[in-house]
């Protein structure tokens, strides 16, 4: 009997959960030159790497460099990964270190950091229904008005597929046990940001 197959959208590709192996198997496969295993690692973690880079407010160009460098770093160290089961945490930590190195190199006069989302353009999402589009734009703007630590945590948690708390903790230097409560507090702030912007921006709110 054929198992029902669930797919998840990762970027523009789809992959099949029935084919999944543990990340450790992908790491071992990639270390022996298996391109398919390598592709699985990228499908699973590329969005996390990108999300971590963007959580540091790098602009698209710099975030792309960091994402590329992180994958090159993994190729460089494929034979020396000590805990292949935790490859997501390794990638998240490596991405963070690359972000910090880039910011250090650029110094204070580096390329300006990205002002992502401060002027979210609802027209940017032509495929969506208008109400969804407006809601997305409000959420994106509200996220970028958050205090830095909350904004970074939520941007990483919004990675797709959702990261594990180990991976999040690796980036933010947080104990895994404190991520849940911090997440709840930050989401509450996000709700308040949304409510504030609805009151101040929506001309209908006074009716």
């Amino acid at each position, binding site marked *: 009997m054929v198992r029902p197959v669930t797919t998840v959208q990762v970027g523009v590709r789809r992959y099949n959960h029935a084919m999944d192996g543990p990340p450790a198997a992908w790491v071992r496969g990639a270390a022996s030159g298996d391109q398919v295993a390598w592709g699985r690692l990228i499908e699973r973690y590329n969005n996390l790497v990108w999300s971590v880079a963007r959580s540091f407010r790098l602009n698209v160009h710099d975030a792309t460099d960091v994402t*590329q460098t992180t994958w*090159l770093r993994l190729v460089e160290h494929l034979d020396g990964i000590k805990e292949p089961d935790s490859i997501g945490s390794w990638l998240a930590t490596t991405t963070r270190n690359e972000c910090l190195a880039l910011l250090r190199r*650029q110094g204070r006069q580096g390329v300006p950091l990205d002002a992502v989302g401060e002027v979210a353009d609802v027209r940017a999402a032509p495929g969506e229904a208008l109400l969804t589009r407006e*809601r997305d734009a409000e959420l994106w703007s509200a996220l970028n008005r958050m205090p830095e630590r909350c904004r970074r945590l939520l941007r990483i948690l919004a990675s797709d597929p959702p990261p594990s708390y180990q991976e999040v903790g690796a980036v933010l230097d947080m104990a895994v046990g404190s991520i849940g409560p911090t997440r709840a507090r930050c989401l509450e702030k996000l709700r308040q940001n949304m*409510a504030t912007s609805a009151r101040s921006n929506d001309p209908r709110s006074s009716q």
Partner: protein
Amino acid sequence: MKPATGQDESAGGPVPHLADHAQGNDDEMLLAELRRAVAVFDPLPASTADFGLDVLSWRDPDAELAALVADSRELAGAVRSGNREVLLRFEVAPYAITLEASPDAGGRFRVVGQVEPGIAGRVDIRQSDGAPGQRELSVRCDEWGRFEAYPVAAGPVSLRLTPDKGHAVRTTWVVL
């Protein structure tokens, strides 16, 4: 205007653990919405996945890895100027490789290198942002260990040194 649900609950409503549970569901829903908004407004560039798929061919376990031991951009008190010249030094026994990378007007780099001790061989410069078909640039390194390469694309770069006699080494990736 209706207060947000979170404020309702913190004002003392339902049994705490039920409230926690409801709050947990609300949080999951909000996070799912946020994930959708992020996918719309801050999407992962498809080019990064294509790039990642290509680079496994640079796996090179047989060449020893030379670590970056100095980067002029990381010197304490380094004064940033418009000049983006970069000095780098890598080391792996028995070699030290020094690079001086100077940008041209188009933002590409001229790389002048020195291997110590001086040794003749081939230097392959892997440039991940190089144009298709030009992602490896190969030059000769003379008997005094000197070499020069141009043009090298800005972005992540790694060198592989294959001495005429002796084992190959590679440098860790650095971003020019």
